[in-house]
């Protein structure tokens, strides 16, 4: 399966999630908790809007001079003792990582939670080459043990509750059958399980939240400290980094270390921020590789409206406020990038043909744009992508006819009259102005709600009628109408 496109259209996948009341309860509780925490943390900052503007401006500057900054990063990282590789697509990136791991003679690796490695399907690719990749982020571990896929960028196991997690642990880590669903007990079980992995690991695999061009530094931001273990304990470190993750200077990090934790977890400060620059004798991995990943990003960069998507810092604030994500869950998006950002990022990375239903998986309510710390106008990009998406011939015909009618006031008024003639007798027969069942495609509306019928007299006709009675200067006379 393509990690960016499952092939199942969003409405169909969403229907499955909507039929699962436990999932809906879990999602509602979790998203509302994080949403409230974010609102509180952001509300504390008087300069939040200025921070957003600055963060967006830094990212836009990066996107404007990306080739130059990437080359600078390569030069500095290489000078610091790292090896930089360039990958055009997922297959190329997986092959590079696999080759490096095989070169060490190891058959396993520990992993820091990373969206880029999920995006390229790295775990599956390594497995095909006989290499086991062990996730070490707690939520990522739960998903891996459940043989499931993540459903949230920041909280991959958001769709599970504690009892379900306990069942997964007992099934997959049978050492502790008496395990309760107390969070501390669950964390302790995971900790002892992971400790064994860390102490034996020779290879670590990570992504990076940011990569600093001026210093060749990788920045990994996480909450548990497990990522830091992966970065420091193994002999070999391989980082897969999307090319848009570059920041020009170390000083730019200051802005993002304010906006990222507040937007993602609702915390003032991030618990574990690790910065890693090449190799240092006697300290950490002695062999460091950075794989710079394109995988559709250059194409996205070339699109004037769509390129703002590359500002994304994967905070997932948009997921937590999205009413569609809250009901449909992350799996419905069929991509490792779910929610509003996934609805624009996935089709841009794969091409619209692979993800044609995603730009329509939104009411354009704008809640995502309001919370985005880098001011990605997600509704604008959604509409832009809808324009590129394939339309059914029936829909295109209906839209063309509607546009043709609405281009001319005369035709429009005639169409209104026709609608009134067509449904007027129906309204009279029903004795009311709503109808409970319409033929397809109107049935999609009336399945859940009544539909209104045209009024007996349109506003246009009311106005004409009023004009005649009111005389040539007409408009100034208040007209007594019964409401």
């Amino acid at each position: 399966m393509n990690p960016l496109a499952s092939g199942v259209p969003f409405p169909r996948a969403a229907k499955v999630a909507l039929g699962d009341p436990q999932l809906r309860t879990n999602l509602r509780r979790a998203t509302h908790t994080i949403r409230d925490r974010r609102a509180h943390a952001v509300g504390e900052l008087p300069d939040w809007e200025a921070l957003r503007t600055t963060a967006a401006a830094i990212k836009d500057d990066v996107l404007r001079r990306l080739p130059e900054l990437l080359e600078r990063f390569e030069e500095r990282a290489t000078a610091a003792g790292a090896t930089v590789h360039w990958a055009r697509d997922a297959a190329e990136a997986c092959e590079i990582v696999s080759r490096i791991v095989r070169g060490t003679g190891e058959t396993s690796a520990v992993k820091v939670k990373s969206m880029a490695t999920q995006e390229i399907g790295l775990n599956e690719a390594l497995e095909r080459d006989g290499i086991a990749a062990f996730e070490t982020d707690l939520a990522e571990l739960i998903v891996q043990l459940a043989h499931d896929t993540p459903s949230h960028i920041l909280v991959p196991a958001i769709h599970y509750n504690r009892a379900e997690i306990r069942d997964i642990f007992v099934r997959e880590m049978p050492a502790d059958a008496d395990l309760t669903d107390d969070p501390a007990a669950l964390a302790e079980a995971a900790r002892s399980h992971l400790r064994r992995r860390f102490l034996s690991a020779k290879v670590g695999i990570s992504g990076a939240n940011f990569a600093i061009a001026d210093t060749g530094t990788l920045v990994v931001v996480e909450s548990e400290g497990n990522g830091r273990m992966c970065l420091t304990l193994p002999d070999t470190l391989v980082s897969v980094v999307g090319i848009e993750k570059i920041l020009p200077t170390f000083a730019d990090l200051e802005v993002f270390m304010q906006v990222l934790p507040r937007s993602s977890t609702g915390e003032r400060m991030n618990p574990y921020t690790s910065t890693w620059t090449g190799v240092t004798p006697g300290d950490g991995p002695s062999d460091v590789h950075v794989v710079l990943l394109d995988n559709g990003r250059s194409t996205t960069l070339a699109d004037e409206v769509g390129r703002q998507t590359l500002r994304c810092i994967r905070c997932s604030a948009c997921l937590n406020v999205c009413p569609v994500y809250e009901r449909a869950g992350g799996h419905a998006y069929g991509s490792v990038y779910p929610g509003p950002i996934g609805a624009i990022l996935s089709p841009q990375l794969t091409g619209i043909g692979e993800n044609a239903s995603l730009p329509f998986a939104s009411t354009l309510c704008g809640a995502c744009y309001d919370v985005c710390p880098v001011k990605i106008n997600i509704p604008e990009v959604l509409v832009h992508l809808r324009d590129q998406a394939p339309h059914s011939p029936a829909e295109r015909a209906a839209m063309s006819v509607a546009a043709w009618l609405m281009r001319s006031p005369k035709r429009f008024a005639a169409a209104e009259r026709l609608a009134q003639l067509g449904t007027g007798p129906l309204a009279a027969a029903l004795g009311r102005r709503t109808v409970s069942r319409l033929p397809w495609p109107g049935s999609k509306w009336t399945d859940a709600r009544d539909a209104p019928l045209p009024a007996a007299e349109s506003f246009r006709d009311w106005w004409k009628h009023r004009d005649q009675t009111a005389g040539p200067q007409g408009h100034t006379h208040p007209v007594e109408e019964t409401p």
Partner: protein
Amino acid sequence: MRIALFVTCMNDLLYPDTGIATVRILERLGHRVDFPQAQTCCGQMHLNSGYQQLAVPLVENFVRTFEPYDAVVAPSGSCVAMARDNYPRLVPDAAGVAARTYELSELLVDVLGVTDVGARFPHRVTYHPTCHGLRMLRLGDKPLRLLRAVEGIELLELGGAEECCGFGGTFALKNADVSGAMLADKCRNIADTEADYVAAVDNSCLTHIGGGLTRQKARARHIHYAEVLAS
């Protein structure tokens, strides 16, 4: 000041009372309102559904029709947001008329400086702010300030008010199940207020919400806030 009414295609055909109410409010305040016959649709349906090229002639018609006026008023947050957010990008020279296009509460409160329009509506009313009113036009509490001044009204706070009702234009058809789930939550929140009416600045959202309420035979009925203000 020459004020033109953009009634919107939906109000014209389905909710003429909303257009009539808008005219009556403004005339009661002593203003003259024109209704240019050449108007049709703002083009939002086409743009938001992925047919930008089909929307452009509709936008051109709007700009041509309303260019001569000092102010254009529409009792529809989403159509005004369409004009303000998208017209300048779609049609050259649209920026002027787009900036002079107001949602009713903007015209009343910001331009005309009125919050009490002399209405009387002795009912229990809850208010749904709508996404376009809330997040695109940033209407804030302008419609509520107008409603609070209505004599006899009892305004009830709506839980989850800022959440989308699930309409989203063609979203309601393309993603009918998710839309229905969002609607169910909105209707439950409205029912919890025990209001007689749910009011909003947009008949599109109200069609969706009202369709859900009548289907459930709920107590609350939907009403455009202009009709409350005109009463």
